[in-house]
């Protein structure tokens, strides 16, 4: 495809997404290609190669995009090719091929208590200090030594002049060396990502999102307190948790907004882990989970960004609550929530994304995939739902290629 044609195709594809967000009818139902380790299966390489070989991963990702011609693509390289960066920073929260799991297995997060229950006060009082002295050395080897940095607030006059000597401490120096090395690898990785996304854009394929975010509750539950620690905090550290959630909503926005703006793409992808119906009561959800997240959503919307939460598992009972956002500003991606039900409740408020089931895609036959797409077209798209077709949380790693083909073919067959 020549450059003007590719550019026109890009505009056309992006317009479909824009139309969905604005609750207008696009010319056809857009389809997204979101993948993590499925690319390894597709390209016939191991998960480890996918994580470590930037060039190979870009080549496979490009081949997949050109084969299926999706309307939007996820940040295909950024999502998986982090092996060298993880190694350079000595990341402790993940196990990945060659580091705890086999060469042909995806990375897996280690749910642990990375912040202790008695550290709430410290984190709330001085988040940056808590990060420097406690959290960073705990989660990444490169930062080990930062514990010995001084407490910065309070340094003044000759105390400042004297305290700078902490930086001469051999452990601190070594930590800085390690952080510089990690930064260089991370920069290389990022440039590969930028270059890949620019190449995809030049071929006519926009990205589903410029950056990612996290809800305040999930941020604390997943990355600090751990699943069970957080659940106990709902009873034991209720007030402190609520205080921290409020604060986190503010500093997460400060993180996300500039990154999203710099990416040039307004969509912010926010995978949601702890909202499902089964995980807490409606009252707990409305007390602990939703208020700080809604604050974030509004904060993003107010600066012209488009939040795209991926509501994992079944969130049917949350639909009436999460409906409380301005119309035409968000994409809600659902994993196991019945899309027809989601459309009934939210169809006039948000664009929808999803949600072919992982078990169907991995173990089903192409004609079953076809039927599942038809079901969504008949009951959501043709009823006026602004649906971006995708798998429940992107293509499961094990999906046979013929089922992916069936998904894209069926979308074109039934919805333009």
């Amino acid at each position, binding site marked *: 495809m020549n450059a003007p044609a590719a550019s026109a195709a890009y505009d056309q594809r992006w317009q479909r997404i824009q139309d969905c967000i604005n609750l207008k009818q696009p010319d056809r139902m857009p389809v997204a290609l979101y993948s993590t380790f499925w690319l390894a299966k597709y390209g016939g390489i191991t998960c480890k190669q996918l994580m470590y070989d930037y060039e190979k991963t870009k080549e496979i990702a490009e081949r997949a995009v050109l084969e299926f011609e999706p309307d939007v693509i996820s940040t295909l390289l950024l999502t998986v090719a982090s092996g060298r960066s993880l190694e350079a920073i000595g990341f402790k929260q993940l196990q990945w091929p060659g580091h705890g799991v086999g060469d042909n297995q995806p990375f*897996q997060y280690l749910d642990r208590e990375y912040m202790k229950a008695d550290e709430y006060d410290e984190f709330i009082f001085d988040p940056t200090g808590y990060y420097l002295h406690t959290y960073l050395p705990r989660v990444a080897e490169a930062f080990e030594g930062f514990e010995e940095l001084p407490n910065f607030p309070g340094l003044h006059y000759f105390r400042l002049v004297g305290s700078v000597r902490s930086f001469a401490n051999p452990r601190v120096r070594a930590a800085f060396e390690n952080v510089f090395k990690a930064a260089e690898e991370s920069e290389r990785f990022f440039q590969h990502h930028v270059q890949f996304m620019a190449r995809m854009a030049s071929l006519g394929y926009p990205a589903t999102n410029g950056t990612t975010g996290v809800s305040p509750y999930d941020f604390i539950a997943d990355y600090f307190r751990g699943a*069970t620690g957080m659940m106990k905090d709902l009873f034991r550290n209720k007030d402190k948790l609520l205080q921290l959630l409020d604060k986190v909503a503010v500093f997460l926005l400060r993180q996300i907004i500039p990154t999203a703006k710099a990416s040039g793409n307004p969509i912010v992808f926010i995978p949601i882990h702890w909202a499902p119906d*089964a995980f807490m009561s409606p009252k707990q959800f409305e007390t602990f989970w939703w208020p700080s997240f809604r604050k974030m959503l509004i904060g993003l919307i107010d600066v012209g960004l488009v939040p795209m939460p991926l509501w994992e598992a079944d969130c049917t009972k949350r639909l009436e609550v999460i409906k409380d956002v301005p119309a035409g500003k968000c994409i809600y991606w659902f994993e196991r929530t019945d899309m027809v039900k989601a459309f009934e409740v939210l169809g006039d408020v948000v664009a929808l994304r999803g949600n072919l089931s992982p*078990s169907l895609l991995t173990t089903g036959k192409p004609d079953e995939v076809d039927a599942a797409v038809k079901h969504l077209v008949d009951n959501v798209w043709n009823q006026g739902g602004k649906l971006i077709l995708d798998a429940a949380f992107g293509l499961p*790693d094990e999906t046979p290629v013929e089922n992916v083909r069936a998904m894209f073919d069926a979308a074109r067959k039934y919805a333009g």
Partner: protein
Amino acid sequence: MNDMTDEERQLVEWLADMNEDDALALAKRMLLEDKKNPMRVLELCRAAMDIVGKRFEEGEYFLPELVLAGEMLETIGAIAKPLIKLGDGGEAKKHGKVLIGTVHGDLHDIGKNIVSFMLDINGFEVKDIGVDVPVRTFIDEINTWQPDVVGLSGFLTLAFESMKETIAAFESAGMRDKFKVMIGGGQIDDTVKNYTGADAFGVNAVEAVALCRRWMGVAA
């Protein structure tokens, strides 16, 4: 348990209502100062857990309550168990043996732990053999422990294949008809149940308990 004193009733109520501080203080006093029979205190805990389980089934309680209940039970158990003397009475009869583990390739365990806890408080003898469990380990454990039910857990989609392999290995080892197999985890549904050859699947801990009860002929 209808023959409870006011104090005993209070302990059950505080435990069931998630009033952790008061419940633990009272349990400690009963065990350490008033020298109550530790078996009796554990029985009260079980009565409280019955209420917790019921509230979970009825949709009043969710995972956070199960986790806190588990923790309270563990704390009281740790104090009570060393105090048990011969003649304090035996443990309640178990309904059946459930072997449970996360299949190979998968390291997730939150759901599995909650299922183990719920089975345990519902009177099943549970042996949890951890995460990323190789097929061979399941077979060895089954041979030595002779469970009535085997529970396979998995969160990732790779678990579909691991579960299928594990169950196929039970067939090859000629042991498949000696126990029931249930599967569970974030992505498990009827399609996966059929694909793997499991007897049943459950979407939460209550369903796991119901399956085991049904298979063991225990009234709910």
